[in-house]
């Protein structure tokens, strides 16, 4: 058995060696999630990339079906030693790959670039992929929470584009008016988006992180405020407990007047919606001055190559850089509801595009609010996410009525998981 294995290894090594010496093209292996959303983006980017880098070939791997699947796959491949050169990971799932040493620091490559800032990589964007003062990930597609409005439904209660609600209190008032005007189901609020995104949105709205180090921050004043705000939205609007698909379907069918969701779904809603006018507007704030920060969703490019060959690494970096800057980044906005976090791409290349696609421009206006989508540290991160999810669902269903009690309960339980 041992002999056959050695023989197999020799054969493999030999084929690998011949491939190296014959192949003029350097093959960069690349994995990404959600092929339904992003295939079209890469189809648009690839010809441009090949034109700029004719000696590199991008080999698309089997796509990940979700961010969680993407992280699982990379963790498995790290064990098997079959990691791709570049992988796309959910913004809140980068930390674990950095902790385990699977993702490589990008600092040496950035140091070698002459005009890195000029290429549009600004600080807030780099912060999303920075761990221990070193950049590991470059965000590729970014989403922020926005408000979706069905203007025909909103008109029934006297709303138009100039007076859409800007605080959650006004949202609740709008719900009451819409109900009076005969709209059964006036609003949906995306509490169930993965990673407790909307809880983090309410926390960042008050400029408060959800976790600091290992400390869960829900036991603060801001935490209670976030929970109370949620409760007032849910009960004031008598919001139904819909799952993702049902919520998107209701909005597309024109039943809902308002939906608070990720900007990334704009494309899907435009494809699926009935005959009504869709307007997106800034995410409301807890106070009249609007949110002070919002969590970024989306994915980020990480270098996971195990190669020592400088040429291979340079090729991987070339691809990573191409898709996160310039024309490559611009194609993200052109083909999806996401936006590139790249300043140059947004402000120069895409200026006309956003004028023509106002529904996608809302998130760009919110870019200065961009904050981290926080992961719960440690091995129980996913369990913590689920505990919070269950708590939030309890608010929607009315199971929890006393928010102080819920705050205490969630804080204790989650803190136990994080310690």
């Amino acid at each position: 058995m041992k002999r056959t294995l050695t023989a197999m290894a020799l054969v493999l090594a030999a084929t690998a060696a011949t491939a190296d010496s014959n192949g003029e093209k350097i093959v960069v292996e690349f994995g990404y999630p959600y092929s339904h959303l992003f295939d079209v983006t890469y189809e648009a980017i690839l010809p441009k990339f090949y034109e700029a880098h004719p000696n590199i070939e991008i080999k698309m791997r089997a796509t990940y079906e979700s961010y969680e699947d993407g992280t699982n796959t990379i963790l498995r491949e790290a064990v098997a030693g079959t990691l791709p050169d570049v992988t796309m990971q959910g913004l809140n799932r980068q930390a674990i790959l950095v902790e385990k040493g699977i993702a490589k620091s990008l600092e040496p490559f950035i140091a070698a670039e002459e005009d890195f800032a000029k290429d549009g990589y600004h600080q807030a964007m780099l912060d999303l992929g920075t761990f221990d003062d070193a950049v590991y990930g470059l965000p590729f597609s970014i989403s922020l929470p926005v408000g979706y409005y069905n203007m025909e439904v909103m008109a029934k209660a006297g709303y138009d584009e100039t007076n859409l609600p800007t605080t959650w209190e006004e949202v609740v008032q709008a719900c009451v008016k819409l109900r009076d005007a005969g709209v059964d189901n006036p609003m949906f609020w995306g509490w169930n988006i993965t990673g407790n995104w909307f809880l983090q949105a309410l926390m960042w709205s008050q400029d408060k992180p959800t976790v600091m180090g290992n400390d869960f921050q829900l036991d603060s004043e801001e935490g209670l405020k976030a929970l109370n705000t949620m409760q007032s939205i849910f009960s004031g609007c008598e919001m139904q407990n819909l799952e993702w698909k049902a919520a998107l379907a209701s909005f597309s069918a024109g039943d809902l007047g308002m939906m608070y969701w990720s900007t990334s779904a704009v494309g899907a809603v435009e494809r699926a919606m009935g005959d009504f006018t869709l307007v997106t507007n800034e995410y409301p704030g807890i106070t009249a001055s609007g949110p002070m920060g919002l969590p970024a969703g989306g994915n980020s490019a990480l270098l996971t190559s195990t190669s020592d060959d400088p040429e291979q690494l340079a090729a991987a970096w070339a691809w990573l850089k191409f898709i996160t800057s310039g024309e490559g980044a611009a194609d993200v906005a052109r083909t999806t509801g996401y936006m590139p976090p790249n300043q140059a791409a947004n402000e120069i290349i895409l200026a006309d595009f956003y004028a023509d696609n106002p529904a996608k421009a809302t998130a760009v206006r919110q870019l200065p609010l961009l904050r981290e989508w926080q992961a719960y540290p440690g091995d129980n991160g996913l369990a913590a996410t689920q505990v919070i999810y269950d708590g939030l669902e309890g608010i929607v269903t009315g199971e929890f009525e006393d928010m102080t009690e819920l705050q205490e309960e969630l804080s204790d339980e989650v803190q136990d998981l994080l310690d």
Partner: protein
Amino acid sequence: MSDVIQQDTPATTFRFNTRAALTHAVLIVGALIVLLPFYTMISLSLKAPHEIMQQTGGFMGSQQPFRDDFCVKLGNAVEDCLVNPIIYNYTTAFEKAPLLRYLLNGVIVTVSIFVIQVFVALPCAYALAKLRFWGREAVFALVLFCLLIPVHAIALPLYIMLAKLGLTNTYAALVIPWTISVFGIFLMRQFFMTVPDDLIDAARMDGMTEYGIIWRVMLPTAIPALMAFGIFSIVAHWNDYFWPRIVITGNRDLFTPPLGLREFKGDADGDNFGPMMATACIIVTPLIVCFLLAQRRFIEGITLSGMK
């Protein structure tokens, strides 16, 4: 269905039987519950995205051409991107997820698994049923014990073993873990127990070797049991989503049909249900055709293996 019609037509020999009527009513409700997802699957595979999301258009949808946004985004003119829902759903299923390739993979994988399973299970079952040797009962107990282990419990060690051998992302990874089916061994052993010893003794007297007996005497008698086992094996591995998803991470060309479904997933950003359901329809079609062709065998098989 025919029974219901019969009950409406007066016949001289017919007597209303409350019990039978009740049984049929329950069965009809059960059948509806089972068929409803199929109805939805077929219906969604025929409709345009906006009809699916707004739940309009009945079973077929209006079949009005709609704009394929992905085509527009790639820079084509809007007029060139108007597509008919049925054609769009099914061509997308075949093009975006190269379904023919996946179907071929599915056939290669399920057939290899079944053939190897038979090669392993028949001799094992024969030995356990008809040969006397030291430790036979212990071996059989081990077989029964293995029946209790869920595959998910050993998935990780299996994956690591395959990874160490460098076999992930190959057909081998899809086939090897399933080649020894303890269920198959158990099923065939139970069947062989019912084969009279005289038959085997006669074969031995005619000078057949033990392997000769297995392949030329036992195999032909075991065809019904093999059919039953084949149905379980093929259905399970054709539909398996879990294992291929674990071991195939590199090369999309090795996907089995169910993995084709994931190409249309978008979660919070909206799934592409039309082509997804078209893919699902295409995946189940071979199984349904097989079922219709071998309906009697199928039912025989279920009753045979139904632990009588």
